[in-house]
């Protein structure tokens, strides 16, 4: 049988690889179609720019210097340089919502944002909702037990905060409709709905 030879990453290109500067481990070489190959070729012609530069990120109200490459994600910068680990790496495509942060007040996935794009913007992480007097959203999460293992919880808390900022009078139906960007494997959805409803109604007693 003939060897299937390939150098990883010379055979496929997608958003995830772009973000991580990676070729998916030996992507479907044998299956590649002509257009795929052409695209891969184009991708290969791009040079990895790995020059480091120091930028200032405004996170949770303070300016922080971080050293980044063009490919450094916001998530990597805040987790490993600022040690803000509330936002979680769950899937590199952001579909789990576990790395949700507020960027200029908008809920965004820190794992699909480049750190460079966030310079000059105001980033708020879940940690800004904690402290001595926690925000009403995490307080309601606790009161309604909207966390089990808790790994999805910080992302969910930020998503709920952003949603309720935009819809302070949200109905239950609107909450069920508007908070589908986050995945919880432990199944806390019922409790999250209760928590969000409690915030709408004026917080936990």
């Amino acid at each position, binding site marked *: 049988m003939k*060897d*299937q*030879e390939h*150098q*990883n*990453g010379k055979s496929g290109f997608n958003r995830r690889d772009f973000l*991580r500067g990676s070729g998916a481990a*030996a*992507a*479907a070489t*044998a299956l590649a179609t002509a257009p795929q190959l052409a695209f891969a070729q184009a991708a290969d012609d791009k040079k*990895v720019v*790995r020059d480091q530069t120091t930028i200032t990120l405004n996170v949770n109200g303070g300016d922080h210097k971080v050293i980044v*490459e063009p490919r*450094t994600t916001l998530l*990597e910068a805040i*987790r*490993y340089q600022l*040690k803000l*680990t*509330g936002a*979680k*790496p*769950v*899937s*590199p495509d952001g*579909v*789990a919502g576990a790395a949700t942060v507020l960027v200029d007040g908008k809920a965004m996935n820190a794992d699909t944002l480049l750190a460079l794009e966030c310079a000059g913007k105001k980033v708020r*992480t*879940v*940690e800004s*909702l*904690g402290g001595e007097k*926690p925000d009403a959203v*995490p*307080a309601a*999460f*606790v009161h309604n*037990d*909207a*966390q*089990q*293992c*808790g*790994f*999805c919880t*910080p992302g969910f808390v930020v998503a709920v905060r952003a949603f309720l900022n935009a819809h302070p009078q949200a109905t239950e139906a609107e*909450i*069920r409709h508007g*908070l*589908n960007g*986050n995945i*919880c*494997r*432990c*199944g*806390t*959805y*019922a*409790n999250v709905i209760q928590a969000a409803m409690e915030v709408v109604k004026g917080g936990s007693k």
Partner: protein
Amino acid sequence: MADMNWPKQGTAAVLGATPDRIDGIAKATGAAKYTYDITPDKMLLARALGCPHGHCQITAIDVSPALQVPGVVAARALKNVGAQVNWEGDLVAVVVGETEGAVAEGLKEIKFAFNPLDVWVDDSDLAGAEKAGRTQGAGDNTKLDNKDIKKPEEQDAEFKRLLDECKKDGAVVEGEYGIHVITHMCLEPHGSTCEWEGDKLTAHLSTQNVSGTAGQFATPLQIAATDVTVHCDYVGGGFGSKFGADSWGVVCAQLAKETGRPVKLMLDRDLELKNAGTRPSGFIQVKIGANKEGVVQVWDSKHWGTSGIQGGPVTQGVIPYVFDPPNRRRKSIGINTNAAGARAWRAPNHPQACAITQVAYDDIARALGIDSYDVFLRNLPTVTNNKAEVYKAEMEIAAKLMDWRKKWHPHGKGPAKGSVVTGLGMAIHTWGGAPHSSTCTVKIHPDGAVETFLGSQDLGTGTRTVIAMVVAETLGLPVDAISVNIGSSKYPTSGSSGGSTTVGGVSESNRRGATDALNLLLAKVAPKLDAQPEDLEAVKGRIQVKGNTAKGLSWKEACGLLGMTPIEVQGNFQRGVTQTNLSSNGVAGVQMAEVAVDRETGVVKMLKFVAVQDMGLIINRKLAASQIYGAVIMGIAAALYEERIMDPTTGKFLNAELADYKLPRLGDTGQIVVELYEPESEYNRGVVGLGEPPVIAPPAAIANAVCNALGVRVGTLPMTPKRVLDAIAKAK
């Protein structure tokens, strides 16, 4: 003397209440540090490369080009040329570097080549698997009411006769049902952050087995287990897949040694799904016969499925599930597929067994035109766990909460709103849930502070909160007065969190330890109060003569009598050895689903779900309810959304990313109603584990509801729109 037994129902100060979980705010504000979050100074990041083919022999592997990438610090091959790889995604190499970008680029440079070998990944196609030589017998068992019939040919004839009898008088259904492989999908992937101090290793491991993993590092690293500390304050999901150090945990420790720096190696999402845990599939062909009342007389089945490369099916002992009719024959076949070995998945074997057998019971109801509720009710005398009465009581409660009798219609005969029809379904389950062995150290300090230590973990159940409540109840203190320390293998040994054993286990050890510690304190206090220790009690923050608030000391004053030395006591519970009134074993559980199905699009929508569950004595009603909500939602996922999809040619796991691996979202779960069933008879049994049971019945209950709505059985789960439409088309 303080009494070890639990207080009588209704008299407890803390047990059965609903305090918030004590680590809730840490989890909800990002302060809780999971393994993935541990970032020691100078830490390096590591990532692994997975094999791209499902079955192959390695012809080349060279990691040296990776070392040329700036920022890459180390790289190593995990397999040699000539080695055979048995599943796609099996780890073949790892790269360590300063940044994620550098590591990713390094992985890309690794040279890897292979010769493909034959691949088999289809676990539903029994005939094909047999032809490919991928099957193995996995046990069978026959039970006949007439025990004199022993010869196989005579047994064949008897089964035929019994089925013919049912056909005449009642109903016989020949059904094919199945449920596909799913993954654990822990949101925190498997992995560790390892750091060395000289020859001593600290492994921050994402684990549900804090006390049991140090040796798993020590042995392959050839160091003493005493030189390993496993640490895990928080774990982002386990569900049965995180009992081990795993080969990549050991590699992480080796790389930390080699580089002289802490190293973090967490699996990427796709490698997590390909390596770190799946649940076996289950497919079945069954002939089931019942009398005209719907009481099943005969069951004759053959089932198969895969646990990956190990090639085992759902164990035959749970077929049919919970019910065991007087005449029953079952045969099981395992299929060996090119996939990583399955791992224990919340309630191993039970959800699949329930999903492929209680649907047949419902098909009996359909065939006879009887209310499914009555068929389940009439078969209760055959349940295998002596809990017919509990099921009956729980069914009544569930039916009320669902408004079952009013909403029920015969299968496929309900009113339609346009193309949308609705239906009801139910299923029942069982589980053991006896506590694991557990040891703890309870300390009462002279200043009144109380702390407890044990090598346990919080899988999401709320272990810390449960422990604090038990100690607080025992010492007459508020929950927040107890400092709970778990998550280190240097603490006293406590069992792994698997099989719904933790709440019982940690309650046992802490109730025992706290009671013994209290008795030592009472002995100190008694002379001060001119009383005997056995006349004293600890209530509401005081030590006092029983019932006499005037004759007592505050907790702080009482502890002051200790002088300089704290009280330290070990609480010890050994499963199967320690006599106990504090815990027990075995639960029932009844669940009902209401769904809407669009006959035109095939989309199933959850309307309402009712779960009624017993669990003996309930420690924290809020946390208990959360377990059940969560389990039901996981069950909805397996019923309607999630499955592993494999490419038959390459053996690739095609949907190993969250974007493609479907899970329900917040808006997909409908209304969930949870009822904790705790009459005095249950309370008096003591604690029984809860984690597994409520995740078992949802797929069967939902499948039965879909069948009730459509009048057509969607045989294979998850019931995706395509499968629903195919089933409708086939029935036409």
